[in-house]
């Protein structure tokens, strides 16, 4: 069996595992609706499925445990950790600001000042440091495993897009479970899934770039957790009315920062990475 076929087989096993397990909310929506605790347990386990699928695939195909990308590689890469932290913060802030400008709303609530913004930024930073562990559940599967295989099979550019699409598709069963439980309308499920897919495809390119650049999964983990925490704390920073999740009257405007990040990362991956490989070969 050729090396490429072997990689393809491993990728298929990984994807099969990750999608079968990801569909559990569709089958369990009834007990999840009845019990918040059960819903929480399913949610937490669901986030760990990519990492679990990575471990199972490696074990089942005798791939071994090399290249897990778990080394921090802080030396010489600290700047990439800072970038992984600041880019999602800036992107989420810009999204909120753009939305405020277009909707002619006050960007900062009356009771929010610059000291609050600074305080929230520092709190996000300390939370990211302490809770970065949570992001390993997803990133160990997507960036540290799937993207590696996709890159070898299809090259950098297609791997970026395909990886983002798969990542976005993986979230959909959870949305469907919400629709089945009647928590959101089917229209909201479709629109929400599409919007998040655009965000994830763009943001996934940045995370892939960071992983390739540092040869470590941790900057991607930091980026992922910062993105989640920034969205969660945007209400505290800009006022509840301007929170990322609530101030979404014009949806497309909020995507602009993420699309820009996605395009820049895509250019960097497709040109800079190839240039670096050529330099190494020479």
């Amino acid at each position, binding site marked *: 069996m050729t090396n490429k076929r072997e990689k393809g087989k491993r990728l298929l096993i990984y994807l099969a595992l990750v999608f079968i397990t990801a569909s559990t909310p569709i089958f369990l929506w009834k007990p999840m609706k009845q019990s918040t605790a059960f819903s929480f347990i399913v949610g937490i386990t669901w986030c760990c499925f990519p990492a679990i699928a990575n471990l199972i695939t490696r074990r089942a195909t005798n791939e071994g445990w090399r290249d897990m990308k778990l080394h921090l590689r802080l030396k010489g890469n600290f700047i990439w950790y800072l970038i992984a932290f600041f880019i999602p913060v800036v992107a989420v802030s810009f999204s909120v600001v753009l939305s405020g400008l277009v909707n002619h709303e006050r960007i900062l609530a009356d009771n929010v000042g610059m000291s609050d913004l600074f*305080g929230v*930024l520092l709190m996000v930073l300390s939370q990211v440091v302490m809770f970065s562990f*949570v992001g390993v559940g997803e990133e160990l599967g997507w960036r540290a495993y799937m993207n590696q295989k996709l890159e070898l099979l299809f090259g950098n550019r297609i791997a970026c897009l395909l990886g983002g699409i798969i990542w976005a598709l993986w979230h959909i069963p959870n949305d469907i479970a919400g629709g089945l439980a009647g928590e959101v309308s089917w229209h909201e499920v479709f629109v929400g899934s599409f919007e998040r897919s655009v965000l994830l495809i763009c943001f996934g390119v940045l995370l892939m770039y960071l992983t390739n650049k540092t040869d470590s999964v941790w900057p991607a983990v930091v980026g992922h957790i910062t993105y989640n925490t920034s969205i969660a704390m945007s209400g505290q920073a800009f006022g509840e009315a301007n929170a990322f999740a609530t101030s979404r009257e014009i949806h497309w405007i909020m995507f602009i920062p993420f699309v820009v990040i996605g395009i820049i990362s895509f250019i960097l991956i497709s040109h800079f990475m190839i240039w670096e490989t050529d330099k190494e070969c020479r």
Partner: protein
Amino acid sequence: MMRGLLYKEWKQNKFFFIFIVFCGLVAYILTFFLKYVGKLDGEDTVFRFIGIVLATMPTLVYTEMEIFRGDDRKLWAYFITSTSEGYKGFLRIKYEMFFAILVIQCFSIEIFDELYICMAVDHGIEEAMSLGGVAMAIAFFQMLLFALEIPIFLLFGKKKTEQIGMIVSILFFFIIVLFFFLNVDYLVNITDGGFETFLEKLFTEKVKTLVMGIGNILILCTYYLSYKLSCRFYLKGVEHYDK
């Protein structure tokens, strides 16, 4: 070499690491014992708070007693200095490991705390307060203690560090007692108004975010500086070790 050092730490502290993974559960078992077996009256939040504090105590004890157990010997110190990673790599593993312990401790408490809140909601109790922030505050406090203690330990050895620790603890206790005696009225208000009101009074939302944010970042910087200091003091301190 790094992998070898990690293996050594795992072998030495296996049970402690397993405990840390489940320390969130331990916190709630302790809460249950305090409330139902001890039959104490009071708010749930207070018992949960005490449970979390008690469950995180072993980490504090571990840093005091265990983290350099068996490593404070001249022979080992000279051996580790002669390896490819040197004493800097050895100390880095210790610092990274303790940091990982705090992260897992925080994560464990947060998970079980959220689970408790979800279960409370299922039983119709909507006002259960999240104590995830408490876990984080404790973790940063423990990080600060570790950062302050380890360079002193490496420079002066175990006995002197224990003596210094004792003096500092007595002073700290004395200041706390003095603070409470000077604020008796305030203390009465605290006990009357309940624990949540006390926390709200102590940290208003506006002050809390900024102070905790700056404090946490300063502690992280102190932790890094502590590593640098430890590296500087290590070989000087070795002379105080037993053979």
